[in-house]
């Protein structure tokens, strides 16, 4: 039983992102017995962040599998299991440890369907926690989503809120491709109303989280909340009408929604929590520059984490996360002296 699933009544389903993903796992494991969960401490312990709590008790040790600390082979085994007909969900505790599974992810999982001319599928979900916060230090704070989005054959999902997380996770489990599902730990406890039951959000659709007409902020994962807060301030303090687009998935990337928003607003800021250089902001800004050039009233701006290992000390760590103030300031520059 996932916590609260029975006790929460429909009208009061205000739950956290963490609980929403857990609920998605629970539901998907219930409908498809080929779905198994594999990872370190995911079983009896219920996950180091209690993010898999209750699954072991419900589905047993055969379907909720505690592993040794062997990231490379855990993931490699999952690829083989997926090729053979299972649908594994693999948890990699910290996104920083993706560095240990890259060979199996990039050279095997991402290419098997292509290399076998469609003969084999690799239906799996790699779930991992990312982001800066809580002073976890340089080796536990990285967000390497730009790497993954660069690899043909992988899908990359990064929800910003509970309802999206649930719907996207369910879509990820049902997808026949390797999907990397990245959750910023700082969003784990964000609550919102999550509709009960079957609500699947197809991968590849961005969501306009706030409508506006003068500038668009593109963001994903935790950064969406920064964007929304900045939009509020921009309206109140500078009378700038800001649209906020949550990309939700990087691969597939919803270029249509990106283009149509900037066509309307004429200005764009791309915001991200990963390191800025050679990260995702470049791709999105470049895409906009290429496709919307004639409608641009200002250069496409970018804001992401500085190119520095994420430090431990809270006073420095907080400088690594693009702030609401920085976003406001950056957007203001796009309106020149006029604001």
């Amino acid at each position, binding site marked *: 039983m996932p916590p609260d699933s029975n006790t929460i009544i429909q009208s009061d389903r205000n739950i956290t992102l963490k609980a929403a993903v857990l609920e998605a796992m629970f539901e998907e494991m219930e409908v498809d017995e080929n779905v198994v969960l594999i990872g370190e401490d995911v079983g009896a312990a219920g996950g180091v962040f209690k993010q898999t709590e209750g699954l072991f008790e419900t589905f047993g040790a055969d379907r909720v599998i505690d592993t*040794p600390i062997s990231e490379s082979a855990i993931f*490699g085994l999952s690829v*083989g299991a997926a090729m053979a007909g299972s649908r594994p969900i693999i948890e990699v505790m910290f996104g920083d440890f993706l560095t240990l599974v890259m060979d199996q992810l990039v050279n095997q999982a991402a290419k098997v369907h292509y290399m076998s*001319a469609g*003969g084999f599928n690799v*239906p799996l979900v790699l779930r991992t926690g990312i982001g800066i916060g809580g002073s976890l230090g340089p080796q536990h704070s990285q967000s390497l989503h730009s790497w993954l989005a660069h690899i043909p054959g992988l899908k990359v999902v990064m929800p910003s809120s509970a309802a999206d997380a649930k719907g996207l996770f369910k879509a990820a489990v049902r997808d026949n491709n390797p999907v990397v599902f990245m959750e910023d730990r700082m969003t784990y406890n964000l609550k919102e109303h999550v509709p009960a039951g079957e609500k699947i959000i197809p991968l590849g659709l961005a969501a306009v989280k706030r409508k506006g007409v003068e500038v668009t902020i593109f963001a994903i994962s935790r950064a969406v909340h920064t964007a929304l807060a900045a939009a509020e301030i921009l309206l109140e303090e500078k009378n700038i009408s800001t649209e906020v687009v949550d990309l939700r998935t990087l691969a597939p990337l919803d270029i249509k929604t990106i283009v149509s928003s900037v066509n309307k607003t004429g200005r764009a800021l791309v915001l991200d929590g990963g390191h800025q250089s050679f990260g995702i902001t470049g791709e999105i800004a470049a895409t906009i520059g290429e496709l919307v050039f004639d409608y641009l009233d200002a250069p496409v701006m970018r804001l992401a984490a500085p190119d520095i290992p994420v430090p431990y000390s809270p006073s420095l760590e907080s400088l690594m996360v693009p702030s609401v103030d920085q976003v406001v300031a950056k957007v203001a520059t796009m309106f020149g002296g006029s604001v």
Partner: protein
Amino acid sequence: MTAKLNKAQSIELYRDMVTIRTFEEEVRKMFSAGLAPGLVHLYSGQEAVGVGTCAVLNKDDYIASHHRGHGHCIAKGSDITRLFAEIIGRRPGYSLGRGGSMHIHDPETGNLGTNGIVGGSVPLATGAALSAKLRGTGQVAVSFFGDGVLNQGILFESLNMAALWSLPVVFVCENNGYGEFTEIDDVTAGRPYTKRGEAFDIPAGKFDGMDVLVVFDAVSKAVERARNGGGPSFLIFDTYRYSGHSVGDKQEYKDEKERQLWEARDPIQKLAKLMVKMRLASKNELKKMDEEINTTVVAAAKVAKKMPAPGADDLARHVYAP
């Protein structure tokens, strides 16, 4: 197995080994003629391992192969014309000609693929075994890997989980003495290498990989154990690659004497002699079979060479599954 070897079995083993040898000769010719564009690694000399192993397996059992994998594909039952086609990059190949020698997958025969990453396929076989166990299908998986993999970390991680969960997987190490141009004994500590399996309490053994009946016996026991829930086995077969690391390698690092010693143990000749001795086939019958096989393989190669290359519209297919 020698004692109870029957005619049908022996002929099947013989036929498969000769088919592989003949196939590889054709591949070598294709390469020399500039038809096989990439790197090709020939299996000649190692036929007993692939054939002896796959002879034990059911069609729906899994194998995961490596860069020297043509022999495994053939032994597991893939179509040789389509194999040729893939190796020379033609559309009817197993991957539309987009994978080549190192990336041949055949779901029909449970073949999880030849593989370009040394050690990369070990967890694939282990994971297929995990899935078979979870789904209760009774399938077994074989992980073929070269001696070079004895030093890749992912092997050890896979061995640990296979042992821990009693997975129905057989680890088959083909020790041909070299990883590319480097002698395996020069870069590998610990003797015998079977201790690498035993460290995980996996039953391990080292066998003559030039004798297909020895291989068949060893793998039979391992597969039986696996199928009965007894977990993995770790088998090392000593063997030899007659060719260079890939076609084109002149093998200056090997000495002539070594080569002669191994060639004297040729797996095909060995079985042939035994079959004649046990009156399972006459020399003439074997010779006839050789010729038949040669005709078939050469014909398949000819067909493959006439096959079309993939078209531009094949480039972007299958990047994502529907």
